[in-house]
């Protein structure tokens, strides 16, 4: 795999001392020291510092803080090329760094669409030159995201595309998706699919009593389950690797569970928004809560949390979608969907730990180890020899989110003025500190 980053100079060795070290790749959670040098993890153990500080190393006392693998965000929309006014690779990478995301997987619905190896190459070069975290693009499954013709899966993967997705579109033609799954299998390429039936998803929010009271057209849960069921039937036939991009409701989890029990090569993500909010947050027609797929009922949110805890859902994503005021200062049904999330991903996720819904090791696995495994990236682990992509965070540090201080170029955060607990203190990519909270 080509790496977008290269460093002109060798970063100074770093000893993160007295930390609570959590390595979900090994199920480890202990107090100790982590030594980083030459861009890789050298050692993680209790009493490293006591045994002697390596020459030239900077020692950081991390007492009270957690040291964990940097987060791997499988679903972030960036906007470069084509929508630089919303977000650039540089601004997204600074937002990612501030949120503890060391590997950002950008989505192909740019302009032009990432459906040609040259665009993959462009993104990797731009990221190398401007981004402070690792960036890997996903490429489109179909040319122009039109759902009609398959892209050059082999060449795109060779160029550096880590997976294939039609972004916020479901491929409605089952034959096209079936062929893509079949062909991608030969390259061991992962198909990441948005599961929302286009003919059932013309509404603005979850269908139900609440939408009816607000007078907003609803999107039924069946819009999601129909596509997921269909896709998994196809997967059962062709056995291509499949990942559901963002599930939102309890019924989908039942479908997913059956497929996993049947041994299908299937994984799934859930967005932090759907773990944090429900349809009632739409009250007052607040357009920052207009999302695609929409926020569902509280029962669904609870079911998603249980699925994260049990491991049924593999990955948690930010589903970072920057929008400017032009797209959001509109009536709810006319506003653009999406919310930014790179910087709030970890603190919002830690709410699940603080409420005892998910243990912190499992949580960090869904945010780092699992997505890295699914994408085949050398990340999400603190094993010696692995790239030194590490975060230091204080899980108990409370703060109020001020949108004005966000690094993202867009401000559409549903956590506007929210009280959050848990803050990234240091983000380290390839041994270099790229973000520090002071």
């Amino acid at each position, binding site marked *: 795999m080509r790496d977008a980053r290269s460093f002109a100079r060798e970063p100074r060795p770093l000893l993160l001392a007295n930390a609570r070290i959590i390595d979900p790749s090994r199920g480890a959670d202990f107090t100790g020291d982590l030594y980083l040098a030459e861009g890789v993890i050298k050692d993680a153990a209790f009493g490293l510092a006591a045994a002697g500080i390596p020459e030239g190393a900077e020692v950081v006392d991390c007492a009270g803080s957690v040291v964990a693998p940097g987060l791997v965000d499988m679903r972030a929309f960036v906007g470069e090329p084509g929508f630089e006014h919303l977000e650039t690779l540089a601004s997204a990478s600074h937002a990612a760094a501030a949120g503890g995301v060391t590997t950002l997987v950008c989505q192909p619905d740019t302009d032009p669409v990432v459906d040609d190896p040259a665009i993959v190459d462009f993104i990797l070069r731009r990221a190398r030159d401007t981004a402070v975290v690792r960036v890997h693009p996903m490429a489109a499954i179909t040319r122009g995201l039109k759902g009609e013709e398959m892209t050059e899966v082999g060449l795109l993967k060779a160029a550096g595309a880590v997976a294939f997705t039609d972004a916020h579109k479901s491929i409605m033609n089952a034959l096209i998706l079936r062929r893509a799954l079949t062909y991608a299998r030969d390259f061991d390429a992962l198909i990441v699919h948005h599961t929302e039936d286009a003919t059932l998803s013309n509404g603005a929010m979850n269908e139900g*009593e609440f939408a009816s009271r607000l*007078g*907003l057209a609803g999107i039924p849960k069946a819009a999601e389950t129909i596509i997921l069921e269909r896709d998994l039937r196809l997967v059962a036939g062709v056995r291509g690797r499949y990942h559901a991009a963002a599930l939102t409701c309890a019924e989908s989890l039942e479908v997913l569970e059956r497929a996993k029990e049947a041994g299908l090569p299937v994984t799934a993500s859930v967005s932090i928004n759907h773990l944090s909010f429900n349809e009632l947050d739409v009250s007052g027609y607040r357009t920052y809560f207009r999302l695609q797929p929409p926020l569902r009922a509280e029962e669904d949110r609870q079911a998603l949390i249980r699925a994260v805890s049990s491991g049924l859902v593999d990955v948690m994503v930010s589903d970072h979608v920057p929008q400017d005021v032009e797209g959001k200062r509109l*009536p709810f049904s006319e506003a653009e969907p999406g919310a930014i999330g790179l910087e709030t991903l970890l603190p919002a996720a830690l709410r699940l730990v603080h409420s005892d819904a998910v243990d912190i090791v499992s949580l960090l696995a869904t945010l780092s180890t699992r997505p890295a495994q699914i994408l085949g990236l050398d990340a999400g682990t603190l094993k010696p020899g692995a790239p030194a992509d590490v975060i230091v965070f204080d899980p108990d540090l409370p703060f109020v989110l001020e949108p004005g201080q966000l690094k993202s170029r867009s401000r559409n955060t549903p956590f506007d003025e929210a009280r959050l607990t848990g803050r990234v203190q240091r983000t380290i990519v390839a041994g270099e500190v790229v973000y520090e909270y002071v």
Partner: protein
Amino acid sequence: MSSAPAFTLSGRDLLGIEGLTASEILSLLDLAEEFVELNRQIEKKRSTLRGRTQINLFFEASTRTQSSFEIAGKRLGADVMNMSVGSSSVKKGETLVDTAITLNAMHPDILVVRHHASGAVALLARKVDCCVVNAGDGAHEHPTQALLDALTIRRNKGRIEGLTVAICGDVLHSRVARSNILLLSTLGARVRVVAPSTLLPAGIDQFGVEVYRSMEAGLEGADIVMMLRLQRERMSGSFVPSVREYFHYFGLDEAKLRIAAKDALVMHPGPMNRGVEIDSAVADSPRSLIREQVEMGVAVRMAVLDTLARKLPNA
């Protein structure tokens, strides 16, 4: 209206029936009664709104509601300006919030707003300093229509509490239905909705109404039959198969009206589709309150404007 009314609305705006108390609604109706008498005089003018500027901002075409608000404002002495903004203007690039900020800079005292999107009027109200009256937003609310319907019912039946009101037709897309359900329930009426399942919103059974899928069952013993307009684009195949089939099962004709209470009265917010949701003979019969609804519309809107104006600064 020399003496100040005994009550004021709790908010600065009238964005919907939701949140209004029974006493607030009744006070508005009582005040409207006085304006009904006034409107029947030769001298119809009052000066409550003298010096005030009222802008009727309509993002969606409307003859009836817009002229009703215009007459109401003028009879109270306001300078009334009508702005009809095609929905295309939003497409020209200006967001609704920018439109609100622009208008706000002209210092209007009252904005009367209709918009095709639910919640749009509330969004606009948050961005301006004047008081805002919702003249219909998407499929959300149309509070002055519900108030005028209530006034019409009360004048003809002497009460609202205990009456059975059947709201029939396209409930799914109807802001009139939502506002009426809220208002009539608040005042103690038994509300039924009658429609084919494709025209009922999800979760309607949790609105505190009785739900019927046939006119025969839904009209049984009803004191008021309130028909809703079915938009033309929803008639052929998308929500109901055809006009013919819709009229056959859900159009109000004399035969169906006989199922209702003997002294049942018929209402329609207009504009009517004769031969679609209502038969001409019923619409024009002595049991039809449709013309009276229009008259009550002006009085109710005067009551709303008068009440809100008393809360304006320097009032």
